[in-house]
């Protein structure tokens, strides 16, 4: 055990750069996923037949196929169509598209939990659909969604390790390089697991803080009230 600690300490500095890349992948994917997922959820609920169908098609496509397949199609497949991008760009795009589909479903659930009554009350004082969505529905839905949505940064952080397979220099790629040098796969992969665990833990603290700060007295999902 003590031996492993010494080994862990010796290789820790090597992980710093990899951790930065992993965080970039995570937040890049999360942000892109938010930008895609929120409109997709709104369209799915309020978009009318055609637009909601489009949103559903996107969500089902990206939830229904492995992220690794999506990454390979983007990185190895798109160049055939004349679209090339950096490894990092491809990884963020794949993660964003994938995450967007999941985030859309979280948001949809929250929008529906806010309920039709709020929309009716907003329309009754003369708000347009758009104004009602923007000022009445979404501010509530975005608060309700936090506990469920908090899964997404965490699962995305871990899923970012697929970027290893197109040689993005993230944590996982770093670990592999260390294994080649040290011939200690078990020690190294345990070490990288610890690094992932710490990152998730820190992320969790921020998410809980956000949830607490955005809380409104007496405003909760019924299930959370217990």
């Amino acid at each position, binding site marked *: 055990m003590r031996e492993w600690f010494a080994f862990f300490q010796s290789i820790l500095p090597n992980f710093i750069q990899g951790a930065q890349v992993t965080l970039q992948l995570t937040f890049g994917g999360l942000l892109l996923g938010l930008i895609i997922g929120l409109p997709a959820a709104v369209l799915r609920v309020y978009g009318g037949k055609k637009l909601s169908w489009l949103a559903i098609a996107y969500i089902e496509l990206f939830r229904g196929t492995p992220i690794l397949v999506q990454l390979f199609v983007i990185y190895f497949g798109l160049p055939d169509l004349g679209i090339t991008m950096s490894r990092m760009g491809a990884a963020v795009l794949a993660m964003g598209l994938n995450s967007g589909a999941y985030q859309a479903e979280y948001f949809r659930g929250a929008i529906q939990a806010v309920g039709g009554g709020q929309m*009716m*009350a907003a329309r009754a004082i*003369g708000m347009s659909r758009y*104004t009602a969505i923007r000022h*009445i529905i979404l501010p509530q839905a975005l608060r309700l969604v936090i506990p469920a949505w908090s899964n997404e940064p965490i699962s995305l952080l871990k899923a970012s390790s697929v970027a290893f397979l197109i040689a993005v220099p993230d944590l996982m790629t770093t670990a592999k390089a260390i294994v080649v040098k040290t011939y200690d796969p078990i020690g190294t992969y345990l070490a990288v697991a610890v690094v992932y665990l710490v990152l998730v833990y820190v992320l969790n603290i921020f998410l809980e803080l956000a949830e607490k700060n955005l809380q409104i007295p*007496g405003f909760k999902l019924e299930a959370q009230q217990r």
Partner: protein
Amino acid sequence: MKKTILEIENLSKTYGSSVVLKDISLKVNEGDTIVIIGPSGTGKSTLLRCVNLLTKIDGGKIFLDSEEITAPGVSEDNVRQHIGMVFQDFLLFNHLTAIDNVMIGQVKVLGKSPADAREKALQELERVGLKDKANHYPGQLSGGQKQRVAIARALAMDPRIMLFDEPTSALDPELIGEVLEVMKRLANDGMTMLVVTHEMGFAREVADRIIFMEHGLIQEEGSPNEMFYHPKHERTREFLWKITELYGKHEDQGSEKL
């Protein structure tokens, strides 16, 4: 002659094969309080929703201030600004404080400045007796207080008419009084009101006219005196007797002095 605010002409509404409203015609003059009563499922709430264009009508016309609001090309959002609506289940915006609930329509719909809207919101909250609760969230208010904030929210838009859809039906008995009190004061101040309720005491005391609806039809209408003491139809008498027994016994005893 008083000015007509709301006029409904031969309104009909069907859901699939069931006819909810048949050929309803109704006039509401400025300052009038009209109370609609009737058994549940007879289309009273649907009628209010049709007036507010929250439900599409299948036939007939509705006029607000002599302008047809059911005509093609009329902006629904525009019409609804001028019609206040109070719901059975309050439907306050849960993420906003009481005062923000009363302000948001003024700012986002009427385009008022936040300062003007705040001043008006405080006035309206005072009118419903809740100025001291301005910074409370809906989750921190009782049902009666929520409903009074909802009334203030509607009033802040300076509506031509207020629609009340069973405003006290979701309230604990001891909270009903405070909401009815606010509504009485509004009526006395000359607000034009169309009220669906089972509160017979309120109907008798405040209504200028009572409308008895059943099976999607206006069965009978008249002054409280006519409706309570000299109804033309046996069914009206029967309904009023039953409902007074159920909801308004305490008020009924008081009425002996009338």
